[in-house]
C-alpha cells in the first residue's frame, strides 16, 4: 500500500525533472532500488500508469536495477554482500554489523525526448 506514496513522490520528481530538461516525452525511468526496501514493482507500475495517464510520462517504462544488501562488519571492518537478509558478516561470521546498502530508493536517470 505504501507504493502509492512512493509512486506519488516518484511521479512528482519525474515531472519536475522532465520540465527542467525541456522534455516533451518521458519514455523510460531508470530506478535503483535496494533489496531491503518493501518496493513492489507491480504495485508501483500500476499506480504510475494511473498517475501518468494524459501527461508527458504516459507509457513510460520503469526499469529497476536492484541493489543488493550490503553490511559493514564492525569486527573485521570489511563490507560484504548478503544473500539472506539478516545474516551477519559473510566473511568472518560476526553478527556485529551495520547495513551499508540495500535501502536505496532513487531515480538514477530518465530517457526523454526533447522534441
Amino acid at each position, binding site marked *: *500500500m505504501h507504493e502509492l506514496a512512493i509512486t506519488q513522490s516518484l511521479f512528482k520528481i519525474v515531472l519536475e525533472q522532465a520540465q527542467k530538461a525541456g522534455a516533451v516525452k518521458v519514455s523510460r525511468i531508470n530506478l535503483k532500488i535496494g533489496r531491503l526496501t518493501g518496493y513492489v514493482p507491480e504495485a508501483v507500475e500500476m499506480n504510475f500508469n494511473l498517475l501518468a495517464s494524459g501527461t508527458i510520462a504516459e507509457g513510460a517504462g520503469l526499469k529497476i536495477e536492484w541493489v543488493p544488501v550490503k553490511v559493514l562488519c564492525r569486527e573485521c571492518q570489511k563490507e560484504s554482500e548478503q544473500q539472506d537478509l539478516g545474516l551477519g558478516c559473510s566473511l568472518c561470521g560476526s553478527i556485529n554489523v551495520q547495513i551499508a546498502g540495500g535501502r536505496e530508493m*532513487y531515480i*538514477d536517470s530518465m530517457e526523454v525526448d526533447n522534441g
Partner: protein
Amino acid sequence: MAEIKILKNIMDENLSQAALNRQWFRSRKILALNLIASPGAGKTTFLEQTIKGLFPKYKLAVIEGDITGDHDARRIESLGVPVVQINTEGGCHLDAHMIDSVLSSLDLDGLKYLFIENVGNLVCPAEFDLGEELKVVVLSTPEGHDKPAKYPLIFSEAQAVIINKTDLLQAVDFDIEKAEHDIRRLNPNVPIFRLSCKTGDGLDKWLEWLGTQGTGNGI
C-alpha cells in the same frame, strides 16, 4: 532521445520533512517515539501501560494513526492524556507531513514525551521516517518467532524491541530465544524487553530504560 541523470532519492520529500520535525522536537526537548507493530500485537495496551507509568508525573501527548475510526484515540483520551487522531483513509503508514500537520493542534508546552502510534503494519512504516527519536517495535508472542526474520528492515531500524504477551508463552508456539537471536542478528545492540501488558510483568524495566533516553540529545 536523450538520457538525463537525476540521482534523486524518491523518499527525499518525506526525509526533508522528517528532518524538520526532528529539529522541531529536539528544540523543544520533546522525546518523540514511533510505535510500530502488527495489528493485534497489543500496541495500544502497551501505550496505555506506558502512559500509566509516566503520567501525570510527566507531561505527554499521543498521536494516533489508524486507517479509519478513533477507537484507540478514545482509549487514550480516557486516561486524561491529550490525543490527536490521524486517519490515513486506506494508507498503510504515517508520514512526516501527516505528523507536521497535526502538531499545531497539540498543547506542546512543557511536553516531555510524544508517542506516535503508527498504523498496524510491520512493512510500510519502516520506510517512512517521521522525525522521531526512537522507533519502538512491539512484537507479540502469538504472532510467531519468525517475524524478525520475515520483516528484517523494521527490526534493524528499531531503537528498542518489545516482546509482548509473555504471559501466553505456555500457550503458544513461540521460541523467545530464537526471536531474540534473530533480532540481534539484525540489530546487535538493540535493547529487547520481555513483558506482559496484561500482568504488568517486565514493564518496570522498559519504563526504567525509557527514563534514561533522550539526555544525549539535549532532550
